[in-house]
């Protein structure tokens, strides 16, 4: 049974738990959904949950490295989204649908 402090005082643990929950939602989305766009969104969720962790650690440890890392992640995420959406667009052009199973055609 968590103590009363845990409910009233917001600390590092709360951020970490929230970030883990968001990450899990992202993983579940990537693994289970078939729509490629939703998939990309789930990936974004995962990335941002990680960002949240970085920021939380940065705040509580008083160091700036975490914040800097977040910028990198966001840059990468932007690039990834661009590539991913391009693929999704080409898949849509070919099959008139954005189901992830069409990516099987990329198999050698």
């Amino acid at each position: 049974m968590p103590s009363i402090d845990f409910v009233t005082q917001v600390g590092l643990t709360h951020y970490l738990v929230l970030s883990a929950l968001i990450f899990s939602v992202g993983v579940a989305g990537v693994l289970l959904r078939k729509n490629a766009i939703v998939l990309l969104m789930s990936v974004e969720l995962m990335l941002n949950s990680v960002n949240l962790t970085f920021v939380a650690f940065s705040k509580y440890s008083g160091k700036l490295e975490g914040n800097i890392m977040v910028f990198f992640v966001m840059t990468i995420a932007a690039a990834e989204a661009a590539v991913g959406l391009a693929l999704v667009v080409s898949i849509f052009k070919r099959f008139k649908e954005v189901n992830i199973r069409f990516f099987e055609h990329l198999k050698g």
Partner: protein
Amino acid sequence: MSHEILLSILILSPFVGFLINGFRYKKHSGNLAGGIASGAVFISFICAVILVADLVGMPAESRKIAVTFFDWIAVANLSVKAGFVVDQISGIMILIITGVGTLIHLFSISYMHHDKGVAKYFSYLNLFLFNMLLLVLGENLLIMFVGWEGVGLCSYLLIGFWFSDKEKAAAGMKAFITNRIGDAAFLLGMFVLFLTFGTLSFSELVSMAPSVPELGWAGPLTLATLFLFVGATGKSAQIPLYVWLPDAMAGPTPVSALIHAATMVTAGVYMIVRLNPLFLAAPNTLMIVASVGALTAVMAASIGLVQNDIKKVLAYSTVSQLGYMFLACGVGAFGAAMFHLMTHAFFKALMFLGSGSVIHSMHEEQDIRKMGGLRKYMPITHFTFVLGWLAIIGMPPFAGFFSKDEILWMAFHSPLGHTGLWVCGALGATLTAFYMTRLMALTFWGKSRVDHKIHPHESPALMTGPLIVLGVLSVIGGWYGIPHVIGQYVGHLPNLLEGWLEPVIRAVPNLAHADESTEWAFMGISVALAGISASVAYHLYVRSPETPKVMAKKMSVAHDILLNKYYVDEFYFGSIINPLVSVSKNIWYYIDVNFIDKTTYLITDLVKGAGLFAKSLQNGNIQQYAMYIAIGVVASLTFILMR
């Protein structure tokens, strides 16, 4: 020319012929193929004549042309040279092989001209002669064995020459497999000889042969000679391995004449004569050789009495005559064996070619019940056949008389002989006279029973020519070995053959001096037996052709036994072949199919299953891949945290 070159040409000429015809095996021009093949053999014949003439010119003690070309095998204490030797024994053999071979090649040109595989046929025939020459000229047992196997191969190829006929192909295989049994024993004999003497060379073996006879059954010499003799029974068609020869008649008739009458089947006799000092030193083996020979002579002759296929009659006759040769070897009369080998080669080749001529003109009909009266249509074939007939039944002064008489006389007179052996021999001679006369009567004499659609005609000159030459040889071929008792009254003719062979053949030990009147008496008996038997057969089959049928019905049991060849084939099938086949089938089914195959299939199934499983992991479904990653991460995290 030097002897090396002559010998090389002698041996290689048929081989070159084989290569030429072998490479143009698809050609259908029989005359060209036959010409090449006959030419090749004729060149060999000329070389053989020159070599033997040189041999005659040498002094009697040193008559030997030995040539060593190179060292063939040299391993540890086994040293085998590619050496060849022409001496008194192989000299006779090469003359027979190349001489009769040439005639049969010529005959074949005409006989086979309509056949599609004529070039193939002649190439096989040449290959056979090459191997036969290796067999007789080889200076050691190993070269002889190479030839021995080679002639077996050619025999197989030629028996099954018309292999699209299943029965003929089977006859070829039967011959090959039966010979294989003998060959295995031949090899064992060679092993024993090598272990005992440390050499395989004939000259060394002969010089090392002990002069004291080896007693008992388990001595190395007795063992080795017995093994070699089993090898000889395979190649020379003696009891118990004779069964292939009658079936071998499935081949073209000239092949029967060359391989299964004149040359190859005498290889066993030749081998024993070649090693005569070894055999003389093993009296127990000689006893077996003589008994088997005598038994074969009678048994095959009795089967020949009722056969209806012209070639089958001649085949059993060949088995029977080979029995005589072994009988001669067994009683120590190796010279007589060589003598009979030679005369038999002449008259049996003649009769086979004669039968080929008959079959040719009868449009492949071989049943003598459907012949008769052919004398009118085929005068030359008939006349030469009569010469062969007189020779084989042993009428003086034809070739067979002298050789067969010498064998019968030695069977009785030699200290290694026995009255029983003589009785067998005489009985065999009587039966021979009967069935040969029956063959003559049914084929050439009496009323014609020929199908009216067939018009028999005399064969072309290329076929009758060889018949005439062989006919002459069947008459005069025996005059080389006129026994002393006759020779002394007819212008003091010496026994040329005996003197010729004397240096290479050891005399029978303790040969008693022969009483001249006894020898005359025995001669008279055998001629009288043959004459009576022949005239009885003549009366039965020409004068009253119905009587034999009535007799066959009355003695139907005996007749059936003979007609079915004593059920020997059935016995072999029942006692050896079928059990062997069923055991093999069981082994195949239970061990191979059900155990070995199943085990390997199990292993392959395991591997295959594992592969299929691994393959299913990589199916291109990205989400599944991601799932594996997720599971992996979760699992490793759990592991780390739980530790």
